[in-house]
């Protein structure tokens, strides 16, 4: 009886077994990475809008504060899309003939709302509250990173549950002094002098012998100072009702 299995079949068998396992792991990894990738979450892809509104122009170039338009962000769950009235506070004076702003003028004159396309969306069973975040030192920049550079507005973060939980479990990584929440250019002070100066500036009590050296240490200080109950932040009922 001839030998059915040749010697090289051992290699084939090993390759099949380990390769198969590897492929399986790869498939799972690929799957999970694909679902979290911008390809799936559409992060970075600006949807079409009735008016090509530029956050870069208004925030970075003109220096208008976030709260000028999103005025409810400190008091309400919603940051709020500004009413046409808000646009017209300036645009009744400048760029009054710009064809790009025709929909805005129409909306104002006819009392018809502008219909924008949603950029950031959460499922209905997730209850996010802007005011709870911006009043506790979580900046606009944390979730809307890079908005100051966007001509057309796109999602900059995946807004998936693991992404939310990452911060809810470790808020130290992202928290900053409340006063810096609307500053899109804020950076964690890099040396003790700067850190001390900032803490003094915002009246944040600290131990002079243990000045925070980095974001994590500053974060721990602020979490305590702002009465944030870290263990509670990953309770289901914090976001789901």
């Amino acid at each position, binding site marked *: 009886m001839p030998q059915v299995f040749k010697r090289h079949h051992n290699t084939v068998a090993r390759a099949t077994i380990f390769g198969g396992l590897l492929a399986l792991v790869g498939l799972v990894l690929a799957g999970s990475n694909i679902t979290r990738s911008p390809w799936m979450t*559409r992060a970075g892809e600006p*949807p079409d809008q009735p008016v090509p509104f530029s956050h870069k122009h208004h925030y970075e170039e003109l220096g208008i504060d976030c709260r000028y338009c999103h005025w409810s962000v400190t008091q309400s*769950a*919603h940051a709020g899309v500004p009413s046409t009235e808000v646009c017209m506070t300036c645009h009744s004076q400048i760029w009054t003939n710009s064809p790009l702003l025709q929909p805005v003028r129409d909306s104002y004159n006819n009392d018809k709302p*502008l219909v924008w396309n949603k950029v950031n969306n959460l499922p209905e069973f997730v*209850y996010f509250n802007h005011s709870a975040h911006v009043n506790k030192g979580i900046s606009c920049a944390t979730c809307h990173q890079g908005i100051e550079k966007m001509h057309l507005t796109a999602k900059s973060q995946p807004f998936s549950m693991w992404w939310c939980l990452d911060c809810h479990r470790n808020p130290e990584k992202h928290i900053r002094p409340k006063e810096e929440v609307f500053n899109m250019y804020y950076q964690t002070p890099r040396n003790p002098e700067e850190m001390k100066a900032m803490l003094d500036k915002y009246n944040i009590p600290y131990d002079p012998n243990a000045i925070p050296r980095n974001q994590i240490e500053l974060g721990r200080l602020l979490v305590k100072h702002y009465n944030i109950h870290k263990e509670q932040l990953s309770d289901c*009922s*914090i976001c*789901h009702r």
Partner: protein
Amino acid sequence: MEKRTHEQGTGEKFWRSLNELMEAPDFEEHLAREFPRHAQPLSDFVSRRQFLKLMGASMALAGLSACGYKPQGPIISQSKTPPEHLPGETLYFATALAVSGFATGVLAKSYEGRPIKIEGNPNHPASLGATSAITQAMLLDLYDPDRSQNLLKFGRVAGWSTFTGELLQQIAIQNAKQGAGVRILTGAITSPTLADQIQQFLKANPQAKWYQYEAVSWENVYEGTKLAFGEWLYPLYRLDQVDVLVALDSDILYSGPGAVRYAHDFMQGRKVRKGQERMNRLFVAEPMFTVTGMTADERLPIPSSKIGRLAYEIARLLDAPVQAEVAGELTPEEQKWAQVVAGELKAHAGRSLLVVGEAQPPAVHAIAHAINHALGNIGNTVVFIAPPEAKPTLHTQDIRQLAQEIQNGAVEVLIMLGVNPAYDAPADLNFAELIPKVPFSVHLGAYVDETAALCVWHVPETHPLETWGDVRAFDGTVSIQQPLIYPLYSNTRTALELMALINGQAGKQTYELVQAYWQKASGLSGAQFDKFWRQSVHDGVMPRTARPVKTVALKQNPLVVQVPALLDTVQAADTLEIRFAPDPTIYDGRFANNAWLQELPKPVTRTCWDNLAFMSLNTFKKLGLWSKATYAWNEDVSFVRDQVPLIEIRLDGKSLVVAAYPIPGHVDDAITLHLGYGRTRAGAKGSGAGFNAYTLRTTSNLWFARGAEVIPTRQSYTVARTEEHHLIDTRQKDPELDSTAHRPILLTGTLEEFRQDPELKNKPHRKGYEHVHPSMYPERFRYDRYENPDNFRYAWGMVIDPTLCTGCSACVTACQAENNIPVVGKEQVVRRREMLWLRIDRYFKGSPENPKVYQAPVPCMHCENAGCELVCPVAATVHDHEGLNVMIYNRCVGTRYCSNNCPYKVRRFNYYRYSYMKSPVLHLMQNPDVTVRGRGVMEKCTYCVQRISKARINAKRENRRIRDGEVIPACQQACPTGAIVFGDLNDPNSKVRQLRDQPHNFAMLGELNYRPRTTYLAKIDNPHPELSGAEASHAGSH
């Protein structure tokens, strides 16, 4: 009767239904199987094989669908921001909602311009911050997809110009003859502006007439005061001043315009706490249990026709200045009851009160006034005001006269504003046949109902939340109604607009009309009026508009009254009494299409979606109903598969086929029929439900009649009986207790027992409760671990005081409105799939002839050692750090293990897409702060976690602790009596903690060591020593 072992036990045996008392096998099945057997198989059109195939395919597809990108949808910005509007936050507006013309002041919650919840207005005398179930449910009426939306002429859609033209032409013709052919029929009107409009018309057309008709009217009250004091007066009771209240055939704590206020006031005298060991006493004599009767300390079942005799006996014993000729004898039991009541009334003269229900004839009311006069109660516990209506009238007389005039051909133009006489007028008037005889009839109504179908024109009516208006409360206080939303349907009109059109003020807005009236009436102008107007609209009450109290004197001393002959024949044996009463939830039928009210278990009977012929067990047996083969399985009465027999009732030549239903505590030889059902054109939900009791109701037998004949039929009828749903096994025997004792579900005691031992240590419940096994498990969520109130840690908890609970069920509907709880319909309720998160368990104790009733509202207990959490395979129900047992819908896979393991049976499963609503208009009503649950998901009470979150975020923003009373769940908010208190158990000063530390606090099923966060206070009652003794021996001898 060998089977009733409970009577040999400790006397603490509670039973929930007659089936349980009878130990019927059907009850055993209900108890053993939480999800009933007949609920399991799939419907016929899908076989098991096909189901599995489809299931596999849909699983595969569902997996694929997760890979797709979901479109984000639009954001619609505002063009102009309305003042005070904060995107995503709610606003409250004060307004008022009226039933039969009488207002309850409310604060309507508006989210982005949509009213989504009704709360009571603390400033309003009829509300004091609470509401009834009906007021809560009136929100659903606004969004009812069956609402009439089009102007109809003979049932076909027609245009406004045609209508206006025809109407004005008719009015012009009538103007020429001073309106001789015009009749206006309305419900009771308290609105000053609307009444003014009608009066304007009558002034211009002196021959025209305005009639008012309410099927459930209080004309007997007015006639009673006329007999006693010589004029029509409306009584206001001061129940917070009352030590002894005697209610004769009166549901004073539940029905009527002041009921919410009365329940609140009365319960002020029943808050039994340590160091506050006093309590008022409530005596009730009535044919069938009412909410008031369930609350009673001493109750006497007695036919309505004998109430007059009883009242007169009490008057005689008190030497009250009244003379009447009454025949008939009281039984020794009734005699004894009258004696005790008279003694109690006398002992608390000036702080006692005897009230008589609207169903009793005027003479009985007059007897009551004489009694209160003799006791010096008038001016103390009862005062009188001029009737709050704009034009008080006798409704039966009005409708009879109108019928007469139509019959005679005198009516050429009939304008009906918000009434439905074709359905609810007395049967002998044959109103439905009369309406077509009127050449030009106009009906204004929210539905194309029985009357609309017979009229020439039908005009759809605007909901009160969509329009301006004004209305009076039971004490006369005026509220301005303001719109919360632009009318959903452009064709709707209000009664006010229609009258303005008739008066030649077409095109006037309701706002202008109401404001113009009050400008005139207040005598103010300019800035002063603006201030007055803004204040009135803002507060929801107009200052100083309550009717002034009148001083009254008896017309003659002694009063001589004629008690109608009917009452004399009370002892004519073998004749059945029929008693008509408004339905506890859908009232006189106007709320028949309100699914919340239809599905709300009726406070007394715990049935829903139906009215039934309620009778005592003895009468049920006497009529031979148990022997019908379809539903009898032995000679005791029991419901097998919720089937009850259909009977035919004949009364004065009229007949009605209705399902018979035995109910504990009903007086023998009497049948109670609730009005409001059996409608034919109520809408998709109300049409065809129940039986039309109006077919037996005539002008002479408006409330009760004797001489009814009952003929059993061979058919049976399915009833949705929620009394046996979500059963807690109270009969399970604990080996460590007395072997005959049942599991003591509630802790109960009398005031006397409480005085001697506030902990009620000797009660069987305590023996079980204190026996808690020590556990090796770390007790992570024990509320008493964090005593320091500054640490920002909350331990939410609730204490329910069953002593204060009347069972009115306002909390249940409030919960439904707040938490987007779907309605499932009768067929699903029969399968025990109702979704209500909060149920009120009603327990009886004692003999079925006249048992004691105990109410226990049962929400999720939020157990610290929750059994549901341990068995969930996907951790969809877990604890949070504030002690809430949270349910994560998006994680739930629907195994239902949690519900199996819940001893309180408070979890609800979505068997179908109950919350899927085809009508887009219903989506407007949903609370955006609460997830809408889909099929296959378990849900339950969350302690209104959305309200906690809101308060927590507000407090965090201000860097402070949540204040006591800042989080009020929907049930607590609606409760008129304050029976539900919620708060932080870590705060030693919080109201809830103080109640929890009361000696008579107990945990339901505490022996299981689930450590529920919701606990109860003992139900304390105040029986009279002479009567309870008698009743106890009666129960024992049975």
